[in-house]
């Protein structure tokens, strides 16, 4: 007996050598969908038994005619009742059988149809199917943005992303947020808590370029940032942006893994101050804001860093022909020590460590950057 038990234990040990893998969100939804189908089991069984009972009964009555027997059963329990079509059904025995079949089958038929409709249309099956399809589409995204937490700020952010046709995935599990996500017609969203590993993995964190941690409170933002950094430790591969109530918290979040943390109150104060500085109409503030924050879709300002070994070093601005070839203007140069030169001319010489500030149409800027990325 002991020998048998130890043998079993050995087999069990051998069979459990593989470590249990955590299920992905897609697998979890597929499992839930399959589980939801188990509700169909009893009504379908009852429907199947009544159909089988009727078919076999009519087959016996009609001398083995399967097609007529099945047809007769369906029109009887489906309350169609075209008449006594199968052979032998117009006899007293046939009529007794039809009576019993109708009493039993009609109830089963209507109940089964109700349950099937409820599982698919009232229950979760359709939603689960939608989520599975959505997750499959998210798997194809690359260099996209992941937005954790859908608030008013996120809604404005989504608007800006849509203008630039940048793909994004929203993660939020709150009922209220999900209501707005559907109202705002968000294409890709994951109804899970954003600090869950599998939610971030399903949102494609390994392929994403940006992550916005915009949760309701600080602790949740910390959880999102830490989890995201655990999954993607490279700060240059995934840029994490977040918000914090104070400078101190912002610093902590940056230490934890965020690339940049914005303090909303401070930002608002600075913007109001800039309006005050630039007279009452605030045209300059508006223009610079729009360009800098990407609200002006026809104009963009970007930075181009020049390394010490770059072939551009020592060249004059007029020699590199940025304006002529790409319709892009160098509006200023930030020097290595941080000093900003805004009085650049064609004769201004480029030095190693300079950062050129380029202004132009987004498409032209992209072309220029692509060219210089290869050269620099």
């Amino acid at each position, binding site marked *: 007996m002991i020998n048998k038990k130890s043998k079993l234990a050995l087999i*069990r040990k051998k069979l459990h050598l593989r470590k249990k893998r955590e299920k992905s969100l897609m697998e979890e939804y597929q499992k839930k969908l399959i589980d939801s189908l*188990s509700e169909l*089991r009893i009504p*379908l*069984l009852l429907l*199947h038994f009544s159909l*089988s009972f009727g078919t*076999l009964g009519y*087959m016996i009555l009609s001398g083995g005619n399967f097609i007529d027997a099945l047809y007769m059963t369906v029109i009887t329990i489906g309350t169609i009742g075209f008449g006594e079509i199968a052979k032998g059904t117009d006899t007293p025995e046939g009529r007794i059988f039809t009576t019993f079949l109708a009493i039993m089958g009609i109830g089963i038929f209507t109940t089964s149809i109700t349950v099937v409709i409820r599982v698919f249309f009232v229950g979760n099956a359709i939603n689960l199917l939608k989520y599975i399809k959505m997750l499959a589409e998210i798997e194809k995204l690359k260099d996209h943005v992941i937005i954790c937490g859908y608030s008013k700020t996120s809604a404005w952010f989504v608007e800006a992303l849509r203008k630039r046709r940048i793909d994004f995935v929203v993660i939020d599990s709150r009922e209220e947020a999900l209501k707005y996500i559907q109202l705002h017609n968000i294409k890709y969203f994951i109804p899970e808590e954003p600090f869950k590993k599998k939610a971030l993995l399903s949102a494609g964190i390994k392929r994403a370029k940006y992550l916005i941690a915009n949760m309701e409170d600080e602790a949740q933002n910390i959880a999102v940032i830490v989890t995201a950094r655990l999954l993607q430790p490279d700060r240059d591969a995934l840029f994490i942006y977040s918000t914090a109530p104070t400078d101190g918290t912002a610093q902590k979040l940056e230490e934890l893994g965020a690339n940049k943390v914005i303090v909303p109150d401070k930002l608002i104060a600075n913007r109001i101050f800039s309006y005050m500085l630039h007279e009452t109409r605030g045209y300059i503030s508006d223009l610079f804001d729009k360009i800098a924050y990407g609200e002006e879709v026809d104009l963009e300002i970007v930075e181009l860093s020049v390394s010490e070994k770059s072939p551009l070093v020592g060249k004059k601005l007029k020699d590199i022909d940025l304006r002529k070839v790409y319709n892009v203007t160098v509006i200023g140069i930030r020097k290595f020590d941080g000093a900003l030169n805004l009085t650049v001319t064609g004769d201004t010489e480029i030095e190693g460590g300079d950062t050129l500030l380029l202004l132009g149409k987004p498409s032209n800027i992209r072309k220029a950057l692509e060219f210089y990325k290869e050269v620099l």
Partner: protein
Amino acid sequence: MRLKKILTDFFLLMALTTNISFIFNPNPYELVIAVIANLTATILKLGEGKILATEMMAASLVADLHLIPAAFVYFLGDVSEAVSLAIGALAANIISILLSIIEAIFGYLMEE
């Protein structure tokens, strides 16, 4: 869950045995019973997310999709075609039974 296992295995075996007897001696009632037993086994497997259960469900569905057309073909007069479809279903039935045996062995190892 034991009762469900008994029922599923019963219907799987029933489908297999009636299918074999239909192949050797084509008879309308046996074919219909094979279809009924096979469909019942499929419905009993509905909604089970375990790996072996899904494999069994797939195998049962294959058998269904052979046996149902076989029934129509048989009653439309082409007996040899119905028999060949039933042979196809037999392969799926055998796989179902093998999977059921594997599932039983795993269940035994887990419980003992």
